[in-house]
């Protein structure tokens, strides 16, 4: 379980097909420790499948997936112990209260009672869930449920965070807390892989960005490197994204709709 040259994630020639559809097409990707990596792409480009493969939730047809020095296929449970995961659409046990759910998560990750108690209290306070922790999750708003999902990803101090649309439904204050928190975690060598459609967030947060399209990594690099690839100096991520994915015919579509 030793980390070679501080690589936290290493995908080598990974292929995943769903019947005739290729979801992930021979992807190679390396992510270093302490990096905030953005994985972007249009709907159905293979982002979520790639993220699930990192946790062993989807088995690749070929290639290898290494996370924190562990072969995911060989020991998925060991990987899961070290990872905090926020899925794209997260269903919770709605029959539990917020605090019962977090208690359950703490136990699953083998946290000590005292540590669990302290940390749950801190997170509930930070995300303004104090006073509602005893309510059934079924009564929570979508934003509150997302906060619970985020807390359950952070609670056990993971080494790698895999976050699929983590800020969805959050109020501005909580979103800011999450963003600042991720920056602070970076300083503690915690790696974050972030998938989002909100490109401003990716631009502001990520050290490197990978753009997926039709299951392949179309472009990979820092903001500056992506600008050079797209030959769009001084442009924002949105323009770069649209140009690189060949979906920059937006103006024409709008004009067609206005007719």
């Amino acid at each position, binding site marked *: 379980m030793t980390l070679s040259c501080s690589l936290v994630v290493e995908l080598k020639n990974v292929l995943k097909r769903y019947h005739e559809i290729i979801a992930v097409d021979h992807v190679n990707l390396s992510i270093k420790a302490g990096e905030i990596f953005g994985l972007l792409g249009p709907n159905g480009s293979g982002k979520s499948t790639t993220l*699930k493969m990192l*946790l*062993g*939730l*989807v*088995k690749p047809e070929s290639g290898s997936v290494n996370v924190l020095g562990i072969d995911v296929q060989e020991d*998925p*449970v*060991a990987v*899961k*112990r070290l*990872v905090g*995961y926020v*899925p794209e659409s*997260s*269903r*919770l*046990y*709605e*029959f*539990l*209260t917020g*605090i*019962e759910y977090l*208690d*359950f*998560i*703490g*136990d*699953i*990750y*083998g946290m000590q*009672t005292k540590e*669990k*108690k302290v940390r*749950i*209290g801190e997170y509930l306070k930070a995300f303004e869930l*104090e*006073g*509602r*922790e*005893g*309510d*059934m999750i*079924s*009564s929570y708003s979508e934003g509150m449920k997302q906060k619970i999902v985020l807390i359950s990803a952070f609670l056990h101090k993971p080494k790698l965070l895999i976050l699929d649309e983590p800020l969805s439904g959050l109020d501005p204050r909580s979103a800011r807390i999450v963003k600042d928190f991720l920056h602070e975690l970076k300083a503690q060598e915690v790696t974050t892989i972030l998938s989002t459609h909100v490109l401003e967030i990716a631009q502001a947060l990520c050290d490197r960005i990978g753009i997926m399209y039709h299951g392949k990594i179309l472009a990979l690099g820092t903001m500056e490197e992506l600008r050079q690839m797209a030959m769009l100096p001084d442009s924002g991520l949105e323009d770069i994204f649209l140009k690189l994915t060949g979906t920059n015919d937006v103006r024409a579509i709008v004009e067609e709709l206005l007719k």
Partner: protein
Amino acid sequence: MNWKNVVHLIRVDMKSGRLLRIRKLTKYHERKFFTYLAYGCALILGLTISILAGVFYSSASAIDPSLPSLIDQTILSLFLSMPTLVLIYSFIFTMFQQIQRTGIKFSFQAPYWLPITWEEHTLASVLANLLGFPLASIIFIATAILVFSFFIGQVVFAVLTVLAICAAAFMASTITEIFRILQTRFIGAVYRSTGRAAIWVRFIGSLLFFIVFYLIYFYMVSGPGTVAFIQTVASAHSIGWFIPFVWLGMVLYSFINGLFLQSFVFLVLSVLFISGLFYLATLLNRRFGLYEPPAITISRGVYAPKAGLLGRFGFSTVELALIRKDFKAFTRRRELMTIFIMPIVIILIPLMQSFGTTETATPQASLYLFALVFLLPASTMAISLGNFIIGEEGQAVWRIYSSPITAKSLVKSKYFFIVSFSTLVLLITGTIGSVFFHPTLRALQVAFLESFFLILALGSISLSNGIEGADFTEVPRARMIRPLWGLLNFAACFIAGLAILFPFLPYVLTFIVPFFATPFFDIYQAVIISAIITVGLTLTFYKIALINARELLTRAEI
């Protein structure tokens, strides 16, 4: 009232049934033939029966000259009682329809943002409730009445009866709609709530429902009988004329007796009553149609992590967390509560049957009922829990997939839950059985041990099948197990149950067949053989469950 809106809403309701029937939701192709098959069959059946009855009626005078007038009288009284009977059974079947569609109604909120009024919503809902079996039976009855009326020369009266039947069905469905809304508002709040009080309310409520249901059932079966019940309904019209629910019957009763003014008065009263019910349903829908139960607080700011007694018995924190979570699921989730109801229902049947007969019953009957009370509830509980305990995770199963939970921990915690809950049921039902049937100590020991063996083996078999056949679909309702796997599991458990109890076959035969030779081995020897079979089955299927769990966690496709 925009009738087009009503029709559109009914169509949506009809299509919502697809989610209950169909698993393959992509490239879906509807075969209209099957949609209307039941109604077509009802029509053909109604026609066939009425024509056959008509032919018999036409030739009845040849058999006995007094027979046609006797048939006339019987048929007319049947026509008279029809609206009330249709009202009763339509109410029952529309209620069943509601139970069946609860998930859909819950998933698909009334599209309140569209230009549709609550009157239109209510009417569409009332009419849609009648789709399926209630409508098919109305078509069958109406066809039979109309066609047969040509043979007896009562066409006008038959037309009036058919109209009354339709009105009765509409009335029943409106009452169901009122119940549905009230349930959403009041009982729904209880179901979605939790805490000890709510659990007791649910438990006692369900228990009362089944007791009342069985009392009526046994009254019908072993009391005066169904025919007497129908005769009572038919003759009750003139006595209970002031009850609005029999006014439709009174319209027919007055009409056939030549009291046309009285018939007209009851007709107007019936229309007013049905309109009143519909208005009430609309009013309730407007008030509670979009009702969301309030947030239920179980504890406020109190954090009490439990170290757990089971920790001392070799359970890890992961396993304990899973057991605690499942306990909360099975005591708080409505659809899982039914599993607890099942043993109660099973135990009620023999107890009701034995009421007043325990002293006079034959030893064979007593033994049969005692075995039923002892063996069946706990093993049914084990089968049901094993079946559903993995699938109940629903779409929140991603948490199991993405957490560091091993196959061993998953199977161990789930199996422990199945065995401990089923044993609890065994203790309760065993106590009730012992109080009712006064078994010997020997019989009690054997029954307890065999029940426990069944729990161990059937729990293990069901768990392995429950993992393999788990269905995490939650919309429109939690499926939990694929139907085929449910059936396979039932068959496997049935065979395994017979295998475990097989060593007792000579004893059972001696008891049933008096001249059958007494077994050469002691009953406790049979228990030992049974235990060996149990151990074999339990260990084998526990290993299969482990393999299935490993595959489930590796496959882990959400």
